[in-house]
């Protein structure tokens, strides 16, 4: 039986990582909540952001906390263009058609990364990755604390945008009633593209933070896509607090499973939780009634 201090440490680390997961899932949730398209290339976009941070670090010694700004801006533009050019014509198509479109995009993304960066694991090395804060017997890794802080700040920014700005309210109107939004003269296609851009920017930030915690390989993409699904379904597809809550839940359960069982079994708990939630509360723990 591991000591209580060890368990506390593991839980804290899982919680902090979970916030970064949560931000990644938030991007997926926002896109689904508004555009009603499930982004099957979400994890692949996450790995692209991680590689972008690696490349910027390699070329200019840019700290991921600085790299996050250009990466997020580029991702926003990329997301906008992808929705406007590729996905908008698919809005009225059946689900499997949208799914195939994004799977094709995901296949291209993974393999372009493989062509550029090769299959070996890459990372960034900054000095604060080895430092930690000590509170009593509990250690807080500096990199993890910063990453989680950034994830929280980005999420808070997004909450404020959706609650208090005109554009944010317009996007929520589209999500609530598409036809109604068109009737009052909102440019729905533009707002959809904007939403996809924002969701992509979330992934960009999450990716730049995640590279401080784990190494990246091109094959990580599908795993992150699944992880993001698990989190948003557990939290509630389309619910913003749900995504963060789901992220923390998965982060902590992964960390505990790694401690008490085999680390390779950790995602099994996530999937088991997903199956239970789908069956007994399909709208998610914090989601609105379907």
């Amino acid at each position, binding site marked *: 039986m591991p000591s209580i201090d060890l368990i506390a440490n593991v839980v804290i680390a899982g919680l902090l990582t979970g916030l970064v997961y949560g931000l990644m899932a938030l991007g997926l949730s926002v896109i689904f909540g508004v555009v009603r398209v*499930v982004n099957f290339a979400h994890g692949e976009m996450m790995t692209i952001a991680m590689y972008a941070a690696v490349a910027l670090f390699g070329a200019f010694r840019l700290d991921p906390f600085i790299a996050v700004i250009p990466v997020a801006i580029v991702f926003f533009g990329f997301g906008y263009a992808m929705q406007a050019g590729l996905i908008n*014509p698919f809005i009225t*198509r059946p*689900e*499997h*058609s949208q*799914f*195939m*479109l994004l*799977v*094709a*995009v*995901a*296949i*291209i993304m*993974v*393999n*372009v*990364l*493989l*062509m550029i960066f*090769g*299959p070996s694991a890459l990372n960034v090395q900054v000095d604060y990755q080895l430092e930690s804060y000590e509170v009593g017997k509990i250690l807080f890794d500096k990199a993890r604390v910063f990453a989680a802080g950034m994830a929280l700040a980005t999420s808070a920014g997004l909450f404020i945008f959706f609650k208090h700005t005109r554009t944010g309210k317009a996007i929520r109107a589209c999500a609530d009633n598409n036809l109604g939004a068109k009737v009052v003269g909102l440019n729905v296609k533009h707002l959809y593209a904007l939403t996809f851009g924002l969701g992509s920017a979330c992934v960009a930030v999450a990716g730049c933070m995640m590279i401080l915690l784990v190494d990246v390989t*091109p094959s990580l993409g*599908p795993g992150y896509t*699944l992880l993001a*699904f*698990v989190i948003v*379904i557990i939290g509630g597809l389309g619910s913003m607090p749900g995504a963060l809550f789901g992220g923390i839940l998965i982060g902590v359960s992964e960390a505990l499973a790694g401690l008490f069982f*085999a680390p*390779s*079994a950790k*995602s*099994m708990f996530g*999937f*088991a939780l*997903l*199956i239970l939630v*789908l*069956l*007994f509360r*399909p709208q998610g723990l914090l989601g609105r009634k379907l």
Partner: protein
Amino acid sequence: MNSRARILLSVLGVVLVLLPAFAGNYVISVATLILYFAFVGQAWNVMMGFAGQLSLGHSLYVGVGAYVSAAMFVNLGIAPWAGLWVAILVCMALGAAIGFLAFRFGISGVYFALLTIAFAEFTRIGFDHIEWTGGSGGLFLKVAQREQMDLLNFRGPPAMYYYAILALAAGALAICAWLLKSRAGYYWQAIRENEEAAQALGINTFRYKMIAVLISSAMTAVSGVFFAFYYNNLFPEQIFHISRSIEIILGPIIGGIGTLFGPILGAFVLTVLADSITEVLAYFGVEVPGIKQVFYGVVLLMVVMFLPHGIWPTLARKLGVTKS
């Protein structure tokens, strides 16, 4: 089916039956792969194409079918002809469990698709930890002498596997053609188009969706048994992986979802496409890992964008084999 379609189908049948007489081992192996994907695509099509239930976790049935029959063969010495039935029963039980849970709790669309992924992934990680089937290290079947045919244990030359999968694919086509014209087939199409309306007409939608899942999972289990004895090695990481599920459904979607020949045509197009990309790249001496898949992805993107109903409906019109 008009007379023209009958002639074309007969010609195709004759060519396929005579193929091993004039084709080399390479062509036979490609043809085996095409027929395998045609068969498993047909199985998936029963659930999605006919009844409208999107499964993204069909690797579950391939994997369990393969593992059950292979583990019985390797560990207990039970011949695949017996193992096949156990594999089918286990997969049908799994399909019944997933279908029952999903349909009773009213899960559909994207949520149903994610539930099927979750079950496949859950099982993948589970098999990583089952020692009896070799865990993550894999399960291996002894590669027998390929010259001798041992029908009882399903070991033999490539042509034997070719004829086996040809028979399976042809059988699946016949079954699907019959199903589509049966009472269940019409009920499924009603459910696919509008479930509420189907229910209002008095169709027991729960029962007919369950039937679709059971038929589909049983057929996919058979493909798993074939997979195990053809490839001789199984790894949970590979056989249950989500990319396998995607591979299964690409054929029917590219070919034409809900059509009888879509899965066959799609399997043909995709396999030939992947192989010719490899050939062309090898010809130009390009050896960049991933470039093949990028081409593959781009072609996929083009088909989804410009042929939303798949290739078959368009091709069928050109060939003059459809009524309209």
